[in-house]
C-alpha cells in the first residue's frame, strides 16, 4: 500500500461506502418501481434528471471544496444573484441570451474569486467567509429586483436549454454530464485533485511540502462560482423565470449529497462518483415518494435517516476493526479478566 494520503485514506473505507450507497440507490429504484407504475418510465427518469441538475452541479463543485477541508455556503445565494443578473441583462440591458449568459458566467467566477481571495489571502475560515457572502449575494439579488421584480418571457430558443431534449435526453443533462466528467478528471486524475486532498488532510503539511495551497484553494472556489452561474442559467431556462429567491437552500442540499456520497466533512477523503450516487439517492427518493403516493414531507425525514445510516454504516465497521486491532495488539495479560 503506498503512503500517499489519497490512497491510504480513501481506497478501502470510501470504496465500501460507495458500494453501500449504490445498493441503497438500487433498492430505492426497485421499491419505487414496484409501487409506482410510471416510476420506471424513461420519461420519469428524465424528470428526475431535469430536477436534480442544478443542485447536482452545486454538489459536483462542492465536492473538491469539502475535500479541501472547506465549505461554501454561498452557492445557493450566488445562484439567485446570477439568475437575477442574467434576467436583468437580457430584459433591461438588451443583451442576447448568449451574451447575458457569458456575462453571468463571468460574474459567477468573480463572485467565487471574492470567496477565494478572502479565504486564501486573509486566511479567514471558509465557513465564516461564505456565511458572509451567503447574505451578501442574496441581498444583492433582492436589491436588484427590489424583492418583487420577476424576469420572464424568455425566448423559446433559450428555454429549450431547460425544457426540451437534445439528442433524446434533456438538454441540460449534456451540460451536467460534461461538468461531471471534467470534475471527475480534475479530482481523480490531476495534480489539482491530489493537492486538494493533501490540503484537506493537513493544510500546514501541504504548505511545508511546498504545494501552492493558496492558488489551488482559490481555483476550487472560483470554479464553484462559475458552475453556480451555469446552474443559475439552467434554472432560469427550466422555470422560465428568474427571481431573487431562486436557489434558496440549495447549498444545504448540495452539501447533503456530497456528505452522503462519502466525502468527509473534515476534508481529505471523498470521491466524485460518491457525490453522483449521493445526488441520485436523494433525487430518486424525492421523486419516488410522489409515485408511491407518500407524503412529500417524508423526503426530509428519509433523507436525514439515509444520511445518518449511510454515515454510521461506514464508520461502525472502522471502529469495529480498530477495536479488534487494539485487542490483538494488547492481548489478555494486560487485563486480569479476559473478555469472553
Amino acid at each position: 500500500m503506498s503512503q500517499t494520503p489519497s490512497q491510504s485514506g480513501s481506497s478501502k473505507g470510501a470504496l465500501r461506502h460507495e458500494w453501500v450507497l449504490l445498493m441503497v440507490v438500487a433498492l430505492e429504484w426497485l421499491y419505487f418501481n414496484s409501487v409506482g407504475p410510471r416510476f420506471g418510465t424513461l420519461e420519469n427518469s428524465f424528470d428526475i434528471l431535469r430536477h436534480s441538475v442544478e443542485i447536482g452541479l452545486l454538489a459536483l463543485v462542492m465536492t473538491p471544496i469539502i475535500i479541501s477541508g472547506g465549505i461554501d455556503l454561498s452557492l445557493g445565494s450566488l445562484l439567485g444573484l446570477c439568475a437575477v443578473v442574467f434576467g436583468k441583462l437580457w430584459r433591461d440591458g438588451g443583451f442576447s441570451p448568449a451574451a447575458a449568459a457569458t456575462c453571468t458566467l463571468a460574474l459567477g467566477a468573480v463572485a467565487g474569486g471574492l470567496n477565494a481571495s478572502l479565504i486564501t489571502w486573509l486566511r479567514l475560515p471558509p465557513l465564516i467567509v461564505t456565511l458572509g457572502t451567503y447574505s451578501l449575494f442574496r441581498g444583492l439579488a433582492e436589491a436588484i429586483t427590489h424583492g418583487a421584480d420577476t424576469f420572464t418571457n424568455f425566448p423559446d430558443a433559450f428555454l429549450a436549454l431547460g425544457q426540451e431534449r437534445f439528442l433524446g435526453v434533456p438538454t441540460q443533462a449534456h451540460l451536467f454530464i460534461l461538468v461531471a466528467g471534467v470534475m471527475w478528471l480534475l479530482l481523480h486524475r490531476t495534480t489539482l485533485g491530489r493537492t486538494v486532498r493533501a490540503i484537506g488532510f493537513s493544510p500546514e503539511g501541504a504548505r511545508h511540502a511546498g504545494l501552492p495551497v493558496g492558488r489551488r484553494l482559490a481555483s476550487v472556489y472560483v470554479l464553484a462560482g462559475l458552475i453556480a452561474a451555469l446552474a443559475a442559467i439552467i434554472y432560469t431556462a427550466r422555470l422560465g423565470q428568474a427571481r431573487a429567491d431562486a436557489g434558496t437552500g440549495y447549498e444545504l442540499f448540495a452539501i447533503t449529497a456530497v456528505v452522503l456520497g462519502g466525502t468527509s466533512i473534515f476534508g481529505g477523503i471523498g470521491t466524485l462518483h460518491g457525490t453522483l450516487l449521493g445526488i441520485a439517492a436523494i433525487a430518486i427518493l424525492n421523486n419516488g415518494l410522489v409515485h408511491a403516493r407518500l407524503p412529500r414531507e417524508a423526503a426530509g425525514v428519509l433523507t436525514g435517516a439515509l444520511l445518518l445510516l449511510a454515515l454510521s454504516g461506514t464508520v461502525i465497521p472502522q471502529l469495529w476493526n480498530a477495536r479488534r486491532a487494539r485487542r490483538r495488539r494488547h492481548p489478555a495479560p494486560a487485563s486480569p479478566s479476559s473478555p469472553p
Partner: protein
Amino acid sequence: MKNLLGLALSACLLATGCTKSPPASAGADHEGRITVALLPKSKGNAYFISCKAGAEKAAQALGIDLLFDGPTDTDPAKQNEIVENWITLGVDVIAAACDNREGISTALRKAQDRGIKVITYDADALPDARTFFVNQATPEGIAHALMDEAARLLNREGEFAIILATLTAANQQEWRHHIEARLAEKYPKMTLVAVRPCDDLKDKAQSEATALLSAHPNLRLLMNICSPAVPGAAEAVKQAGKVGQVKVIGLGLPNENRRYVKEGVTDSVILWKTEDLGYLTVEAAVALAKGTLKPGDRTFKSGALGEFEIRGDNILLGEPFVFNRENIDQFDF
C-alpha cells in the same frame, strides 16, 4: 454491513409505505376514476388546508381520486416540480393556486400539451396556461361587501377610516377605488376621513389605529383591508377603551380574529368560504375532464352549492362571506 443497511432502508421505506398509502390507490391508472391533483401555494397554510377540506368533500361526493401536494419550503421551483411529477403520474386534471404566475405557467402549459386539463384557483396563472380560473372574489365584490357592511353597522352615517397594507400595492389600490366609488354612489352621509398604510404589519396597524382614534374623535368605524390590520386595529380600540363606540371590520381569516369577534371588539370579518372554494374547484375540474364544462359556458351548476356565474374564463365563487359573532365558531381556518 451492506445487508444490514439495505435492510434498514427497505424497512424504513416499507414502514412508511404500509402506514401511509391507501392499499387500493397505488397508481394513477384507476379504471375510469378521474384523478384531480390540487396544488396549494403552500401546504401548511391554514387557508389552503381549509380549501383542501372542501376539495375532499367534493372528491367523495363525486367518487374521484384527489391528490393534494404543495411546497413545504420557500423554493420557488417546487411547484413546477410537483406539477411535472403529476404529468408523469398521468393525472386527469391539475388545479393550481399559483405562487409564481409566470414560472408555473411553463409547467402548466406542458401539462396541457400532454392532454391534462388545467384550471387555477385562488391565484391565477397566465391565461394560456389554463382553461378556467375559479375566482374567489372580484375587486368590486370585496369592496362592496366591506362598504355595505360598514354602512349597515353605522346606519349609513358617520366618519370612518381605512387602514390598508401599502398605498401602492395594486390590489389595495383597486379595492380602495371601488370602496370610494360605492361610498360616493350610495352613502352620502358617510365620510372617509383618513386612509393610512400599515405595511402589512400588525403592530404598525395598531399604532396607526391609535393615532386615528385620538386625531378623529368622531370616528365611528375602522375598515381594515389587509389581514394583519384587523386584529391590530381591534387591539388599539380595546386598549383605548372605545369598544362599541368605534367599530372594527376588515378582510381577514376567522382564526386571527376569533378572540376580538367574541369579545365584541371586531364586528365582522369578511372573506370567502375557503371550503366552498376547494369544493367548487374540484367540481369544476371534474366537469372539465368529463366535458360537461367547456370554454364559452356562461354558468356552472354545482351539485351542492347551486349555480355559479362564469365571466369570460373566470368561474366566480360569488359574494364574499361575512363572519360575525353568530357564525364564526362554525369555521376553523
